[in-house]
Structures are given as C-alpha cells and as structure tokens.
C-alpha cells in the first residue's frame, strides 16, 4: 500500500512539475499576449502544486491566492487596458531568447548533479504554519513593515500616475 | 462629512429594503396570468378577430350580396369577392370570398363599410397552420351554407 501511495505521489509530482515547466514555456514563447498570461497562470498554479507536494498546503493556497488571484488578476487588468492586446501578437523570438533558456537549464543540471550524491530522505513533512506568523511579527517585524510601507507607496504612486494620465487624456472624465 | 457618509449608507440601505418589501409582497399575492391553453379569458363583445361572413338567420346563406365595398375600402387589398345571382334570387350572392389574412391588419374598415352588415368579427385568435397558404387564401364561405350548392355544404357540415 505504501508503495502505491509513493508511486501516486511521484506521478502527481511529476505532473505538477511538467505543468509548471509547460506553463513557463508557454508564458515565454506564446505569440498571443493572452496565451502568455495563461501560461503564467498555469506555471504559478504548478508552483502552488509543488508547495503542496512539499508538505505546505498553506503556502500553496497562499500562492494561488496571491499570485494567481491577485497578481495575475492585476496583470489581466493591465492587459485589458492595453490597446489591441492579443490582436497584434508579440514579435517572434530573437536569437537572444536562448539565454534565458540556457541559464536555468545549466542551473537545473548543476542542482541535479548535486542532488544525485544525496540519499533519499523520505516524504516531506507537514510544517506548522503558525511559526511563519510568529517569525513575521517577531524577529522579522521591521523588514515586514518596511515592505508593507513600500507596497503602500507603490499603490499610491500608481494611482496618482494613472489619475494624471486619465485627466490629461480625457479632460474632465 | 462622516455623518453624511453614514447617513447616505443608511438611507440607501433603507431604500433597498423598501424595494425588497414590494417584491416579496408581490410574491405572496395572487398571480395575474392564466395558464393558456388550459385556461381561457373571455373575450369582449367587440373583439376584432379576422372577419367572417354573417349568415341570414333563417336560411344560413351569407347576407353578403357581393357589392365589393369591403374589397374597395380595404387598405391592404386583402379581400377578394366575386358573386353572381343564384336562380330565382333578387340579389347577388358571393361565389368566392377570400381573405388574405397574411396582409390583413384587422382594422375593421371593411366591416364598417358593409351596407348590410354582412361582415362580422370572428373570436378566433389562436390560429396556426402548417403552411402560409392556409392564411393567404382563407375561404370565408366555407363555414356557411351556400345558395349555389346546398348539397355540398351540407356534407361539409357533417364532415
């Protein structure tokens, strides 16, 4: 029985891995903007699946919520503001596109080589998420607050930029 | 400013609740539609359906004497009347009385123009047919006795 569950685990892990990679490739290589967007969503959900397999459903759900739910929706919102998005399509890949493929490939190879020397340590263990919360509000409170102030500033800045643009363009609207 | 903000929200919510009261009241009140064709409404006396020929009560023959007034008055030219004198009669009687119901606008001018009130309105409104032709040439004489071929129309009645 255990063996079976392990097999299922490996299989699903492999599927999620493949999904992440496929999503990433789609996001980079697709010509249609909305396909790129879709690829990104697929990749991010794949990453959430990886987190889940590594024993942290909490992080996985946060990944879905924040990256798929918030970041992607914000990007989609941006897409809907662009003119003729998805109609014109992106330019074909230039030869320089090899660089972002080669680099991670090299990193992946190095990691795999390193890992091949290690022993298998068994299934990942489920962590208690509350530690994250305590750490964020304890040891790392200052960086946490800095980040939130930064984000607030970014939001306000974006809003004011958008408002000025809109006013200039449409007069009183 | 805060008070007006709160006041606005409270007033808005109140107006929404007033609307919801209306709909829930409507929901609990009686329905006003009828389940046609299981239920029927009675049609008023003056209901203007398609036109039909009025028979003479004693004989069952059409009152119409094929003067053609109706056909001339009709704005859509949808009435065709032809008539001749049956043997021994003083007036003409229609041999053909066709209504092109696809063109008829149910205005009723033909009925008004008839000098002998030989036209009336039918109460038939639920009409359907498999072909356009059923309404392009509605034979209004078919439901009446005919002074020309009594035998034929009697058979029709039985059939």
């Amino acid at each position, binding site marked *: 029985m255990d063996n079976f*569950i392990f097999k299922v685990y490996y299989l699903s892990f492999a599927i999620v891995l493949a999904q992440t990679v496929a999503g990433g490739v789609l996001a980079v290589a697709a010509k249609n903007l909305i396909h790129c967007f879709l690829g990104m969503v697929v990749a991010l959900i794949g990453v959430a699946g990886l987190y889940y397999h590594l024993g942290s*459903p909490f992080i996985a759900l946060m990944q879905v919520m924040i990256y798929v739910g918030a970041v992607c929706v914000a990007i*989609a919102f941006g897409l809907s503001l662009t003119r003729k998005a998805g109609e014109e399509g992106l330019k074909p890949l230039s030869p320089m596109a090899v660089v972002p493929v080669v680099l991670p490939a090299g990193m992946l190879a190095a990691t795999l080589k390193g890992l091949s020397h290690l022993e298998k340590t068994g299934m990942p263990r489920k962590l208690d998420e509350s530690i994250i919360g305590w750490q964020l509000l304890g040891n790392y409170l200052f960086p946490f607050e800095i980040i939130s102030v930064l984000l607030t500033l970014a939001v306000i800045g974006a809003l004011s930029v958008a408002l000025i643009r809109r006013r200039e363009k449409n007069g009183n609207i | 400013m805060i008070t007006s903000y709160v006041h606005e929200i409270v007033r808005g919510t109140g107006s929404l609740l007033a609307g919801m009261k209306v709909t829930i009241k409507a929901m609990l009140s009686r329905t006003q539609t009828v*389940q046609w064709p299981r239920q029927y409404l009675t049609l008023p006396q003056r209901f203007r359906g398609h036109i039909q020929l009025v028979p003479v009560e004693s004989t069952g023959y059409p009152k119409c004497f094929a003067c053609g007034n109706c056909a001339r008055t009709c704005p859509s030219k949808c009435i065709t009347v032809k008539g001749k004198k049956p043997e021994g009669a003083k007036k003409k009687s229609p041999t053909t009385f066709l209504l092109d119901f696809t063109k008829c606008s149910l205005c009723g001018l033909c009925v008004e123009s008839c000098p002998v009130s030989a036209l009336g309105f039918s109460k038939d409104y639920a009409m359907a047919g498999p072909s356009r032709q059923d309404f392009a040439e509605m034979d209004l004489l078919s439901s009446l006795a005919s002074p020309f071929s009594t035998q034929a129309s009697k058979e029709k009645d039985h059939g």
Partner: protein
Amino acid sequence: MKDINLLHIVISLLGIMGMVSLNAVLVVWLERKTAGRMQFRHGPMEVGFHGILQTLADGIKLVSKQLVAPSHADTALFIMAPVVSLVPIFVAMMPIPFSATILAHETDTGLLLVIALGLLNTLGILLAGWGSDNKYGLLGGTRAVGQILAYKIPLLLTVLTIVILAGSFSLREIAMSQNGLWNAFMQPVAFLIYIVCIVLETNRSPFDMAEAESELVAGFHTEYSGMAFSMFFLAEYSYMFVAAALATVMFLGGWHGPILPAPIWFILKVYFLLFLMIWFRWTFPRVRIDQMLMMGWKVLLPISLINFLITAVVLAL
C-alpha cells in the same frame, strides 16, 4: 501524506458532481419560480410538479445542442473557459462541512482553499470573454477582472475577522465555534459586507457586470451555446452554493440548530441565503461599473477594515 485516500477523493468528487447538478436543478427552479411570483406570474408549470423538472428538460436541450465557435475565436481558450470556471468549484466544495462528520475532505486550510479556488472563476470569465472574439464578450471579461479587484480585499478582511474570532482556517472548526451565538449576531457588519461580496463574487444582479444583459447582450457568454453555455450556468449556480455555504459556515453557525438533523439545518440556511440572492436579483436595477468599483473601494473596504481592527482590538484586550 499517508492520509491521501484516493478512493475517498474519487467518491466524494462523484458525490459533489451529483450534488452540484441537483443543486443547479433546484436553484434554477427556485429562481424561476421566485422571479415569476415576484412578477405576478406562475413561472414554469409544465414539466413535472409545478415545473420542477423544467431545468432538467432545459439541460437536456442544451446538452444536445451544438457548440458553435465563432470563426475568429481562439478555439483553445473558447473551449477551456467553461471548464476553468466549473472545475475549481467542484474542488472548492470538498472542504465544506455539511455537519460535524459529513464533509468530503478535511483540511486545516479549508477556508483559504475555497477562497483561492473561487478566484479561478473570474479567470474562466476572462478567458471566455477574450477567447470568443466578441467585443461584448471582451468587455464582459474585463469587467469581471475589474470587479474582482474591488471586492476581494473587503471579502478577505471580513473572512480574516471571522478567522481571528474562531482561531482557525478550518471550516469545521469555525462552524463548531459557533455552537452558541452565531457570528452573524456577533459580527453583523461583517455579515452584511460578506453578503454584498458574495453577490459581487457570483456575478449576480445588481452586480452582474460581466453579463449585463441590457448593456453587453450576454457579456462573456454571448457566443456560447449548448454544453459550454450550460457549464457556465452550472458554474454560476454551483458557485452561488459554495459562497452561500461558506457564509453559512462563517456566519450562520453552520449545521447548528435545534430539533432538525444537522445537515438539514445546513441546507436550509444555505438555501435561505440563495433565496436572498435571488430576491436581490429580481428587485434591484444594475449598479454601474464605476459605481460598483467606488462602492468596493470607498464603502466596503474602509468599513471592513475598521470592523477588522475593532474586532482585533477587542479580542486582544
């Protein structure tokens, strides 16, 4: 990872699919009946007792119809969109506790799961609008995206309020914690905000921006027909159920209630909320898109923030 029981998950998914279909049949019937009665009509009367099987008949009709994709549509997106909007709802149903014991899949983070998966629904709408090569669809899709920005933060804040009250993300524990007093009475403001948010979230009138019949014809599903259309329909009504169930768990004490068995109480409460949503739809005119965004940012967000702060402070003291 030993708690993964494949059989269990398969059976519960099948059960959920059955329940989703049954729920759609019932809610659509309820909606049409309610709408009819609110407008002095009978609503469906012909198929089955008072037309209760009408939805089934319509469903059969829809399924047997052809799916026609516009010639310039992005076929992959066009076909994927209804699936994307429907499948996450199935999964989101898993952690919903119908009683202390009846639930498909228990996790500690059930609340997060439902909310995270709910977000994918919008994705489906966006893809549908974008993929169908229709300007009305496109407008509907982008509206849905704008809409999600306006209500998601107040929604999360109200959810967080409940989470700090119950001290858990587990739906079962949140429901258990309301054995005595329901959260709806402890947190009336949060409850109201949540009700508004779920109407927004499920794209229903008065916030049916993405569909907006009189403005955008049928919005994101203008070009859909047959099976795909019915999947959107199914997704909408299932999502309504999930949102109402979540509200029941968080605010109406879940399955708690006297005399009747627990699952019955749960279903009753869910259907009460569904009726409320139907009631809204057949009473109010549609809010304009910018007014809806205004309301999200200017009314719901500050109020939910203040409510959250007050709750946190009171709990801390």
